[in-house]
């Protein structure tokens, strides 16, 4: 995903002289093509994320389209107040890109995990939160983010994630889920790089005779409420799947939306909601991303087992 990001930002910077890339001293060699193409619009801001976000806001207030990039916890929670005040309060069109989101850097330890970032950034007024599922969605999301007149947070993976799409989704739009497979029994809504796990979950459920809709709900804020209305009205079960805490991420957002629907006017809900994400705890043991996901029950077997039981009731 980071290679797709680097390639796409290089293309976009070539096409738009307002695009500026700021990196928090990561991406060694990754941005060499960008630096060759637009050296005056690349800044290594150093290991100083608060200043980097403030600078990006100052650039945006001067008519540029800055994109700030570093490892997810350091570009979200580390400098949250700069994002809140300098970016969101000013409605500055800054694109904030966190790399290795969720458990992408599992083996680096919990300092490098980010299972709370969407909760924090989703709460900021005016912030758009997008978790692309694969490298193709990264390209589409970056294009959409730079075309969007306001702050955007892109929560991307690291490298080598399995592809879900076969090209840049032409119907990608902020706030609109991408239906990967249609069905009418169980609806899986996944945000981010966990989507392939949801796809495997769907396969297991289909083997058991369930009809499964699989959606890349890449935009966690604003939610695709039309898709949610349809899914909750027609399906027996709706499940959110994310590599993020159950507190405040996609599952939290959907639960809030569900609770806040007007009981007098909203169409009746048929589906039960199940939420899959990380528990309210840090991971204290070493291991790769697959190990960390399994620790939190984020495997196709675990998710399919629970959903099959739920849908059978």
């Amino acid at each position, binding site marked *: 995903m980071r290679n797709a990001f680097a390639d796409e930002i290089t293309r976009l910077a070539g096409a738009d002289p307002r695009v500026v890339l700021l990196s928090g001293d990561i991406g060694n060699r990754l941005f060499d093509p960008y630096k060759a193409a637009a050296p*005056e619009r690349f800044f290594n801001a150093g290991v*100083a994320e608060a200043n980097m976000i*403030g600078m990006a*806001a*100052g*650039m945006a207030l001067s008519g540029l389209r800055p994109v700030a990039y570093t490892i997810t916890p350091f570009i979200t929670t580390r400098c949250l107040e700069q994002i809140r005040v300098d970016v969101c309060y000013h409605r500055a069109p800054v694109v904030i890109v966190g790399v290795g989101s969720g458990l992408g850097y599992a083996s680096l330890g919990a300092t490098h995990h980010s299972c709370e970032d969407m909760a924090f950034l989703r709460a900021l007024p005016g912030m758009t939160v997008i978790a692309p599922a694969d490298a193709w969605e990264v390209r589409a999301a970056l294009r959409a983010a730079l075309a969007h007149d306001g702050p955007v947070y892109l929560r991307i993976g690291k490298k080598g994630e399995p592809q879900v799409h076969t090209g840049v989704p032409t119907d990608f739009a902020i706030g609109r889920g991408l239906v990967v497979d249609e069905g009418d029994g169980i609806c899986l809504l996944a945000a981010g790089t966990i989507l392939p796990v949801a796809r495997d979950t769907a396969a297991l459920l289909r083997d058991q005779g369930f009809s499964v809709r699989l959606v890349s709900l890449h935009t966690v804020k604003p939610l695709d409420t039309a898709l949610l209305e349809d899914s909750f009205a027609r399906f027996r079960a709706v499940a959110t799947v994310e590599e993020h805490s159950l507190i405040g991420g996609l599952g939290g957002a959907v639960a809030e939306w569900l609770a806040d629907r007007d009981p007098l006017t909203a169409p009746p809900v048929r589906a039960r909601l199940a939420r899959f994400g990380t528990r309210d705890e840090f991971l204290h043991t070493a291991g790769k991303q697959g190990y960390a996901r399994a620790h939190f029950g984020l495997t196709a077997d675990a998710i399919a087992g629970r959903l099959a039981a739920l849908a059978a009731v």
Partner: protein
Amino acid sequence: MSLPWHDHADALPPPRTLADVAARLRARAVLMSHTAGTPHLGSCLSCADIVAAAYWRVLRLDPQRPEAPERDRFILSKGHAAVTLYAALAHRGFFPASRLATYNGNGDALAEHPGPGCAPGVEAATGSLGHGLPMALGMALAGRIQGRNHRVYALLSDGECNEGSVWEAAMLAPAQRLGNVCVIVDYNKWQATGRSDETLALAPLRDKWASFGWSAHEVDGHDPDALAALMDRLPDGSGRPVALIAHTVKGKGVSFMEDDNNWHYRIPKAEEAAAALKELGQEAMLAATPMVRA
């Protein structure tokens, strides 16, 4: 020669010196603090000469075109001195001075700290400390990218220099050779609850900025002509950003407020405000302003 002074009901003759401008800004700050019941008056008074020098001598600005891309930028990073900034912008002609009368009222755009776009001429929302300088650097880098040579000034408080983000920015600016950036530290030796040099080890402040790669100078922060001369010498030919350590007195200009940190939070009563304006030589402004807060 007189200086511009956009008035409303005060009917004052135009000021002739920057010191006169600063005295009027101080008087306006006292009145606004009194009328609206808002704190931070000591900080508003300590930076009045700096703000006067900036808006009446240094900044290349056109109040009729507040968003002109080539304008110089001034960021009040110490946003708690918003009243001094509002008064300066109004009396410099960015918006009608009558708007100062409703400052901080329910629903008014002018709050105790400047919000984004709250009034023409306000470049950035501030209030949380340590944010102005990074934004200033972004504006300066944008100017470089866009082929403009505008200058960017950021007014910081000494207490604000507690914030780590100030020093992140202080390291980046020389690395990027941002010679068109000028920091002015309003060094009034106090922060909210104590002496700034005792709270964190701030001194020697000029040496700190110099060692970070800035062209750093100490200056009398109540000599607006000296301030203006230094601020206007930007870029100064060194290729380095400029830091002016402006030695000031908190509450400057009102004897019973000077260097008394109670005035970080205290609100002047009517008789105190009246006494302050008399001491500032602003009887005419006083006569034009109804006193409401006993």
